[in-house]
């Protein structure tokens, strides 16, 4: 936490972008597609639920026909019909 606080301070001083704060960059196309830049891994993977580790937060996606279209060390692309998206810190 100390590290994050220091980064926040540095960001404020140097006006650096949010990405350095270990937060994901999320792009959403309606409720059909989700692009998460900064995904650290999968926490839980079920038929109607995907939980992703995004650094500070755990992102939970609930819905139908969930499909991980692409998955690598940085970016995850998820498609389906999303019903609920929650963040747990």
């Amino acid at each position, binding site marked *: 936490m100390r590290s994050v606080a220091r980064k926040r301070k540095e960001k404020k001083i140097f006006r650096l972008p949010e990405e350095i704060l270990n937060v994901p960059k999320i792009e959403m196309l309606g409720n059909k597609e989700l692009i998460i830049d900064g995904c650290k*891994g*999968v926490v*839980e993977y079920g*038929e109607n639920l995907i939980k992703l580790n995004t650094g500070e937060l755990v992102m939970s996606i609930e819905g139908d026909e969930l*499909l*991980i*279209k692409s*998955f*690598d*060390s940085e970016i995850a692309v998820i498609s389906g019909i999303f019903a609920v998206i929650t963040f747990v810190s």
Partner: protein
Amino acid sequence: MLIIELIRYFFGYINFRASGGFADRFLNLCTKDGIPLWNIKNVNGNISASTTIDGYLSIRRPAKKSGMRVVHTEKKGLIFLLKKYKRRIGLVVGVLLSSIIIFTLTQFVWSVSVVGNVSIDDDYLLSQFETYGIKVGVKISDLDLENAEITALRDNEKLSWAKINKKGTVLVIEVREKTDAPEMYDNSKPTNLVASDDGLILSIDVLYGNEEVKPGSAVVKGDLLVSGIISHADGTQTAIHADGYVKALVKKQKECRSSSFSIFNIEEDKKRESIFFFGIKIPLGTAVPQNYFTSHKSFVRNEEMLLPLGIITEYGCKFSKEQMILNHETQKKISLFNSALFTKELLESCEIKKSCVEEKIENDEIKFIFYAECEQEIGVLQEIYVEKTNDIA
């Protein structure tokens, strides 16, 4: 996305199913090991996904660690397709050969057509552009379209615009023809109206100027009909542009004779066919005589254009010219025919009021003299040359 799918298809990929164990751990371990995964789906606790060939080969470790059992369900991609048909050499050779042929043929011009021309003939324009290198069979990379367009406009005065559009292997020459400016009636120059022929004046209708002859008077060629010099009461004169319509009865005469006639004796008559393929003409026989020559082209055609494949048929004949003495009956027929031609020519410019044909025989030669009395417009403009001087006494 399409490009990515194409690349995946080109290099090949494997669809697999993983069951049992921990799916989330399996995915994380795969990512850690750099195994690319896509289209991951969880159906009743079983994971189905796709990966590359290399990825599938190194998937055993993450599968073992996460307690999952991996089974491949489908192999997809060009590499597997080629492997499947590896023993069918003919098929591979055929694909390669057809690819080479298609690639080679698409390097050349297949068809050249002209659009936008109204009065200029298609063949004339095509042959003109052919001299600039725009023809069937030319290598596309050797084409200099801009230069051809400029040269065509420079050489052909009837064209106002030309553009060569290249659509793959097809060239379409688009042209626009020049519209000639209408001839302007110049009434600024002072003129007289004079007779163009001998005749008897029937009517005179003056637009500008002074009438110099009356209906019923006889005139000879060059006589003044309407004067452009106007005299004023103070003794001065003004030169104007005289004009009007003068109709006169004019006598016409033409002598038609034909004692001998040229005939052509055909000595050799030959036909030759040539195969035309991409601008190359392969003759099937020896050359044809060129005294009289004509050719007919017949090309293979699809729904859209003429293909650069066809047969050119050439006809040629060699002949000699010979003078033939005609008998009286034939001479008569030919002379009468010539008289009829003369009548037709007259009818284009005047109205024939009276005509007759006189037959005469001189030195065993029949001649026909055609006489006609025609009503004709005989007024022609003759410029008055006025010298400008500044000395006013």
